């Protein structure tokens, strides 16, 4: 009987990690930023191709661009302590896969157009993906420089409750199809290997100026390491919400984190 129970629990856990009938995504991309109100320059489009890849395999979701991309999409809704008028429960934290593309800095993501007076926010101060309101995000990508700076993880990224965050340790260049190539490649390998393979350099270019980061979380070292080595978007491994996160304005519970990053020493973050 105990064996059966254990097997049943194992199956349920496996399903929680592997199966998700209708994975969802949310993308905010900031392209035409010059003169839009947040003092930023224009950027290349790194998410159109990603959206195509997602839609091609029947993931569903929304891609907001320019003035339609609002900081409140990633802002925790449950309390104004996280900022004005957040509604992540309908947007980034209502999706399994949350993607931000724009300007950044250490622990920071920045939009090109202000909304409700907000241009930027920190991960710890405003973004609480995977917990509180919404609590659906399992994987986040920050296509922005410095956001996951390794020196800031304890004070910033560790306030998220996703299973995995992918971003950059310092300044970064991203080609138009690099993020979609990453996503497509998770059909064959883990998010970590695909992120490193595609975001250190663009194809046919050999400078290695990027420092991609993969951050993973678990209840202990074993689980965090397992998430790091096996989480895969297209294979749908660890794409479901992590669960058991903090409730609104509750202190962040301790957990185990595992972070691996490539360091080519560019610096440039503040």
């Amino acid at each position: 009987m105990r064996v059966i129970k254990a097997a049943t629990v194992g199956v349920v856990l496996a399903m929680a990690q592997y199966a998700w009938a209708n994975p969802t995504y949310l993308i905010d991309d900031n392209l035409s930023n010059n003169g839009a109100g947040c003092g930023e320059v224009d950027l290349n489009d790194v998410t159109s191709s990603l959206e195509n890849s997602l839609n091609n395999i029947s993931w569903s979701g929304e891609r907001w661009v320019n003035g339609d991309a609002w900081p409140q999409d990633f802002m925790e809704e449950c309390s104004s302590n996280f900022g004005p008028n957040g509604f992540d429960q309908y947007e980034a934290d209502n999706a399994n896969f949350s993607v931000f593309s724009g300007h950044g800095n250490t622990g920071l993501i920045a939009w090109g157009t202000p909304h409700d007076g907000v241009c930027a926010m920190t991960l710890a101060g405003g973004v609480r993906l995977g917990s509180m309101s919404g609590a659906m995000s399992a994987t986040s990508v920050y296509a922005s420089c410095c956001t996951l700076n390794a020196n800031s993880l304890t004070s910033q990224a560790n306030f998220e409750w996703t299973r995995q965050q992918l971003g950059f340790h310092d300044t970064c260049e991203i080609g138009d199809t690099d993020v979609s190539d990453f996503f497509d490649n998770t059909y064959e390998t883990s998010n970590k290997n695909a992120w490193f393979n595609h975001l250190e350099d663009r194809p046919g270019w050999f400078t290695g100026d990027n420092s991609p980061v993969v951050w993973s979380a678990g209840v202990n070292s074993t689980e965090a390491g397992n998430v790091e080595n096996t989480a895969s978007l297209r294979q749908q491994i660890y794409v479901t919400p992590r669960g058991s996160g903090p409730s609104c304005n509750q202190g962040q519970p301790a957990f185990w984190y595992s972070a691996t990053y490539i360091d080519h020493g560019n610096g440039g973050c503040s």
Partner: protein
Amino acid sequence: MIRQRDVRWLGIAFFACLGCAKPDGGSEPVMTSSALAVAGTSLAVFEAKQPTRTSDDLSARLRTIVGLVAANSSVAPSTFSDLVGRHAGAAARWAEKIAIGAANLHVEYYPQFDDLRVNNLDVEDQLNPSADVGEAGARAVLSSVVAKLASANIIAASQYDTSTAELGYTKHMEGVSTETVVPQVLQYRFTLRRRINGIDFANAGMRVVVHRDGRLAALRIGGGDVKSIVTAGVEEPTGKGYRFNSVVDSAAIISRFAKETPDARGVRHRLMYVIMPGTGMVEPRHVVFSAHSSDDGHGDIVIARATHAAYSLADASAAPVSLSDPPASTKTKATRTQ
């Protein structure tokens, strides 16, 4: 007869790295050069050669590279001809996860760039190896790999100089979420570019990733080529290639860049041959990697994604040419209401 030309770069080449990656995790503002340009030097411009590789050739390359990464040289050739055959005629990237003996590998190939990557997943996934061969041990692995690639005729030994390899690291850290953990070196990542008359070629080369314990974790190799003929040890352009005398010093470009882009972050200067967009030509250029920073007007300094810009050595006033994907051109009007 050797004229005053590209080989002169060898004489003034230096490696100054004021902010390269360091094992202890620290870094300062970056100003890096593997070589600097001097005015009055004869430089060659080459016609780019589109990489074309037959299935048999790619299979043979795979056999050698997989043999290195899997530490197994006894794999049947049919393994690779079958693998390549499954993707025959592919115009865009393909990837597969394959097992070679007990080793699990990831193979990926971009045919349009002849860019081949092989990862040993078993090695890559070992996050806490106890042994550390150190930089010297890792460099020994690099030298061994390059020698084996040369002996297999996958590269020309004369086109690679391991002493010029740029070293980065894979670092790993783990702990309780409230603890600040000191990252440990997990891998030594060598970026080694193919050299043309002593100058790096940005679009061709290799990345050799040596795990902390000394095993080869990954090997990436390939890229573009040029139409040339070697005369007295010097690559001379053929086809549409030609020579010119440089009129611009790197020092002047560095000064110009600092003046024109005072808000740049993460700046890295290099002298490199690059495939110039839309021209089909491979030119020596002073290449700058940098990211623009600005005040968002709401109390935060924000940093744009970086770009590579190529400065002319033939025209001091020429605008730099972007080597990166351009900003999106379409302006969209906000239509969202909730």
